[in-house]
């Protein structure tokens, strides 16, 4: 058992798809929350293999898409400083800020580096004592334990030239905001599997109760995503609204208590602006005051940021599933993967980029 190939088996995929086709009798709209799940869907062509009546709305579970513009601009400002080594996950390098991105900063001479883990950034700080090393700590709950422990380790090792620019976002408040919206299209959710690996499933029970909506904790391999979709559709067809776990090999109801404890010690909940959506109360994590000395926002006095979002960009409505990307006037014209106006066209699992690729197949352009 290697936990990979087995969960991409084409024969079993076919079995799950056939069962889904047999199950569905009317139109349903599902949302997969996590960008990683969107990636699996697009990468494997799952969206086209599902029955026509099933609509998959790609949710805001992609840190690339939802990191607030102001945070990106702050990151760009810090990364531009000559004494800074700015470390980030690869995903963030092409996200447009107000007028530029991290790639541009790099070409202007900024020391911007892609790292695999925040621990690599601490190591860089130890190796470059004359520089300030800043790590761009974006992500959902899944990444918070790594960032939290990196801060405690840096403190323990006495690494003073390291700091974290934090922009964590939380899934349950986002789902709540979507469910509260008067124009709610989503009828069932596939919850983000690895978020639940950390946080457990308990936060989703009240949502199921209050809004009578099926929520299925789903993994990331092709069979996992198909099974999550299948379980959600079964619930909808049978009129049930329950919290189910379709990823039991990696998710337990209580999650990872050790990780939760460290995260609570290092971070506190705060309001967070989601790019394109607006402020969702208590939907983010920031460093606690006792860790202020590792907070890049406090260490670097970043002033004079004028954020400027494209007036044409409707990514917020796309992220909430209120419009499909094709319904945006700029889609495919001013806004393409090659010249994106907003984040969902940049990220390979952003809803707009995904639609764009598929549309090329239907009405291809040779340019």
């Amino acid at each position: 058992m290697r936990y990979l190939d087995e969960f991409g088996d084409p024969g079993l995929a076919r079995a799950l798809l056939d069962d889904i086709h047999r199950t569905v009798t009317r139109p349903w709209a599902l949302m997969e929350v996590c960008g990683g799940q969107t990636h699996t869907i697009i990468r494997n062509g799952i969206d086209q293999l599902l029955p026509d009546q099933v609509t998959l709305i790609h949710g805001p579970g992609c840190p690339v898409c939802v990191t607030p513009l102001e945070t990106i601009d702050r990151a760009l400002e810090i990364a531009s400083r000559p004494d800074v080594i700015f470390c980030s996950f690869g995903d963030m390098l092409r996200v447009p800020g107000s007028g530029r991105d991290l790639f541009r900063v790099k070409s202007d001479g900024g020391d911007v580096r892609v790292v695999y883990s925040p621990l690599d950034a601490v190591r860089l700080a130890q190796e470059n004592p004359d520089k300030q090393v800043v790590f761009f700590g974006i992500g959902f709950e899944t990444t918070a334990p790594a960032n939290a422990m990196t801060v405690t380790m840096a403190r323990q090792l006495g690494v003073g030239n390291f700091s974290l620019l934090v922009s964590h976002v939380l899934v349950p408040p986002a789902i709540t905001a979507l469910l509260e919206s008067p124009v709610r299209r989503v009828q069932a959710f596939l919850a983000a599997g690895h978020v639940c690996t950390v946080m457990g499933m308990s936060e989703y029970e009240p949502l199921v109760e209050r809004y009578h909506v099926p929520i299925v904790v789903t993994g990331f391999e092709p069979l996992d995503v198909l099974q999550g979709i299948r379980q959600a559709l079964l619930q909808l067809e049978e009129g049930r609204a329950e919290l189910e776990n379709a990823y039991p090999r990696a998710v337990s109801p209580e999650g990872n208590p050790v990780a939760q404890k460290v995260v609570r010690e290092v971070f506190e909940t705060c309001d967070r602006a989601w790019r394109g959506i607006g402020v969702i109360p208590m939907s983010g994590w920031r460093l606690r005051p006792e860790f202020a000395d590792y907070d890049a926002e406090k260490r670097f006095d970043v002033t004079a940021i004028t954020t400027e979002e494209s007036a044409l960009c409707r990514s917020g409505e796309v992220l909430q599933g209120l419009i499909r990307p094709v319904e945006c006037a700029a889609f495919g014209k001013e806004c393409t993967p090659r010249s994106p106006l907003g984040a969902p066209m940049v990220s390979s699992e952003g809803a707009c980029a995904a639609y764009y690729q598929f549309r090329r197949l239907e009405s291809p352009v040779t340019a």
Partner: protein
Amino acid sequence: MCLGVPGQVTEVWEQDGTRFAMADFGGVRKQICLAYVPDVLVGDYTIVHVGFALTKLDETSALETLELFRSVGLLDEELGVGEAASGPTSVTG
């Protein structure tokens, strides 16, 4: 937002009071931090995200899940399902 990759732990050690490990991801080896999975031992599989193991993968559960998928396949056969949209014909001849 959760590229968590399964890896098998091949070596464990402690450094400054924190457990680290070497994990094998199908041939790729990388050092990871085990601080969040005190019960993971050499030979276990774990989900790793940005250099941190987040949970031990439960083999029994994985096998049960695969068995569930197989049973769905058998059910499909019994019901004569399988005429669902078939993909395009092979392009490799």
